[in-house]
């Protein structure tokens, strides 16, 4: 017989092994994405058919580079949380789920890193 309380035995055994922080962060990154993606879309529309030099000239403005970097952080973060919810809904087997969650993290980190490095390279190149 165990002397542990019922609460201590079930603690940490939830489906995702965590509380509501994922739910909350999904909302907060989504909320951040509204103004940031509006900026991103306006930026893209302003560079329809633009030459490479024009794009680089725009990104050399620190405000533009900063907002673009923030956009990709919020986008990649929201992507990771959203895909995590999908994986947790449909991937039943434990091994499949762990592998898919790992790939999800790798993919979103690479996406964010590639975008941020590209922006920094254009922004800081002399």
């Amino acid at each position, binding site marked *: 017989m165990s002397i542990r309380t019922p609460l201590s035995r079930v603690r940490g055994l939830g489906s995702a092994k965590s509380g509501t922080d994922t739910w909350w962060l999904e909302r907060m990154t989504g*909320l951040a994405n509204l103004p940031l*993606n509006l900026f991103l*879309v306006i930026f893209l529309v302003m560079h329809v058919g633009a030459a490479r030099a024009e794009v680089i000239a725009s990104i050399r403005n620190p405000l533009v580079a900063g907002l673009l970097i923030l956009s990709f952080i919020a986008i990649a973060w929201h*992507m990771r949380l*959203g895909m995590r919810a999908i994986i947790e809904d449909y991937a039943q087997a434990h091994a499949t789920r762990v592998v898919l969650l790992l790939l999800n993290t790798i993919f979103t980190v690479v996406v964010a890193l590639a*975008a941020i*490095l*590209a922006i920094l390279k254009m922004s800081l190149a002399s």
Partner: protein
Amino acid sequence: MVETKPASRPLSPHLQIYRPMLSMMMSITHRITGAALYFGTLLLVWWLVAAASSDQAFNLAQGFFSHWFGVIVLIGFSWALIHHALGGIRHLIWDTGRGFDLATVEWLVRANLIGSVALTFVLWLVVYMAMP
């Protein structure tokens, strides 16, 4: 010990038993557009990395996005983004506990669908006018 077999009780009804409703379809569409945007972000990253790399790489990316096939992909991408963004606002409203009566739910999902199509149209009108 007595051998116990799982009793053949009726299972709870699943998706196929319900008449498809707009709100239900919009919930599914929100997830599908989210998943599409997840992979669509690669196009944005391609464009940025190309711009940071070389004239040759950038011309290749610009060439794809100005080709009719690239334009169709981008129209779909922009609709998915707008639809998912409006759907997100709808969910944020629901998260505050408001808008759960059936009339409001129906109004919200209709506004989401009509709004995303209308805004995508306006966006591409602007893009068309901005084209050199």
